């Protein structure tokens, strides 16, 4: 199976904003934030169709999200996961003693994971806290 390495950034999107106000226990939150936006060239290199589940892994953790074609591109080499528990499972928590984690700029590996599920937000956090794979 092909894997690609991208630089992960997280951040806001309007769908993320709507979803957090609409209820983080709801599927809409997963639709908005349980995704990774990839450049079409990176999707191609990964050998994945749009809207395929992928496992994204960094030095700090691993999470399953749905790979979608970027809405604000092109940005080859950059992956974007809207801010939320999915992104935070894998971002670099190093604060460099400033109090601020490195939410943007974490090297990650992306691999296709069609048979794995993207969890709901609260479920993801609860399972991960229990030490289960998410």
């Amino acid at each position, binding site marked *: 199976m092909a894997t690609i390495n991208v*630089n992960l*950034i997280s*951040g*806001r*999107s*309007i769908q*993320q*904003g*709507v979803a*957090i*106000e*609409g*209820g*983080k*226990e709801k599927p809409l939150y997963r639709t908005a934030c349980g995704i990774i936006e990839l450049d079409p060239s990176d999707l191609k290199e990964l050998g994945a169709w749009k809207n395929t589940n992928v496992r994204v892994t960094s030095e*700090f*953790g691993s999470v399953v999200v749905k790979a979608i074609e*970027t809405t*604000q*591109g*092109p*940005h080859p080499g*950059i992956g*974007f996961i809207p*801010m*939320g*528990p999915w992104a*935070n*499972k*894998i*971002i*670099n*928590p190093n*604060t*460099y*003693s*400033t*109090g*601020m*984690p*490195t*939410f*943007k*700029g974490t090297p990650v590996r992306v691999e296709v994971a069609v048979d794995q599920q993207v969890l709901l*937000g*609260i479920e*993801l*956090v*609860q399972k*991960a*806290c229990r030490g289960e794979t998410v």
Partner: protein
Amino acid sequence: MTKIVTDVICPFCGTLCDDLEVAATDDGKKIIEVYNACVIGTEKFLHSQASDRVTRPRLMQADGSYKEISYDEAAEYTAQMMAKAKKPLMYGWSSTNCEAQSMGHEIAELAKACVDNTAAVCHGTTLIAVQDIGLPTCTLGEVKNRADRIVFWGCNPAHAHPRHMSRYSIFPRGFFTGKGHKNRKLVVVDPRPTDTAKMADIHLQVTQGQDYELLNAFRVALKGEWLPDVVAGIPKEKIYEAADILKSGRFGIIFFGMGVTQSLGKNHNIDEAIAVTKDLNDYTKFSIMPMRGHYNVTGSGEVMAWQFGYPYSVDLTRGFARYNPGDTSSIDLLSRGDVDAMFTIGSDPGAHFPFNCVKKISELPSVCIDPHLTPTSGVSKLHVPVAFNGVEAGGSCYRMDNVPIDCRKVVEPPEGMLTDEQFLIMVRDRLKKMKGVA
């Protein structure tokens, strides 16, 4: 019959729009329609009306299930936790009003706790930079009335602050800006061609993590000094050109966001951006402003500063206030295992902290005060649902430019539900008794 409430303040982002109109039923119980708000603000008002809303405190049981308890029991549980802890962390505050923040600070003082707000994961590094070199800034109306140069650096208002551009920054016609956006030059710096960048006269697609270098190059370019051929992925000609555009305006402003506060360089990115702004004042008038996220994170910083002297990450454990992000900041406290109880209000660290910190929260005695079900409520031992501030309760809030605006109550909360402030008063009174304070 319906009644229309006017001049309603939107309790979502730091733009703190105050021109919403809300149609509610005559008995003041139900919201029917929201006018003038962005899609997020509208959702915020309407979601408060969800039929499946949790309305009573819930205590997690040993098997992971929840048991409904009374507010009295919840206040007692919270006060006990605060009284027992050696180093409790009281985190959040950015989605509640200044009155509740003030009451929370009394609790923090009694319990000798650490107090921190969501700047910790948002604009905390901005505050560090401001402490290092200052901040030439202005109110948003100044931008509307005067600005002809707008820079969005590492921020994407099209998504995060949807009405910012129409109310204040790009489109409005003001006193000296009668032609609206036609007289404004827009520069966007972002590693992605975002929806904001697509509107720009110049988009500099900076290499992610090299904003500090690019900002430094701007300062060099303003002075007309030597530059390497390419900085942070941008050819030097483009940097000189952009620097000239900024210099040639009458009134300019840099808005910046988490693209710079959270990337490598952190506080120094802002530090250098402020230095660019300061330098530009040698040629014209320039200001800079952080795009604050939560609608009242600014207020939390203000109240914390006038009461304790510092805008966030305050440690009261020794009985007096101390401050040093890296030591007294939430992420470092949790990552290092330097707290033994977690009190969350008006924010969702479960969703927005790195996972190692969330796991730590799940292992601690913990209380989450939040109208919503959230990842934080999902890992906390006690969840106390409260009225939606800005919808079901009013109170003082501060916009991203520090302008104070008093939020309005639009409808009644569901029967028997308390506001943040009311619940905190119950906790404070109990804690006072436990500590033997009159």
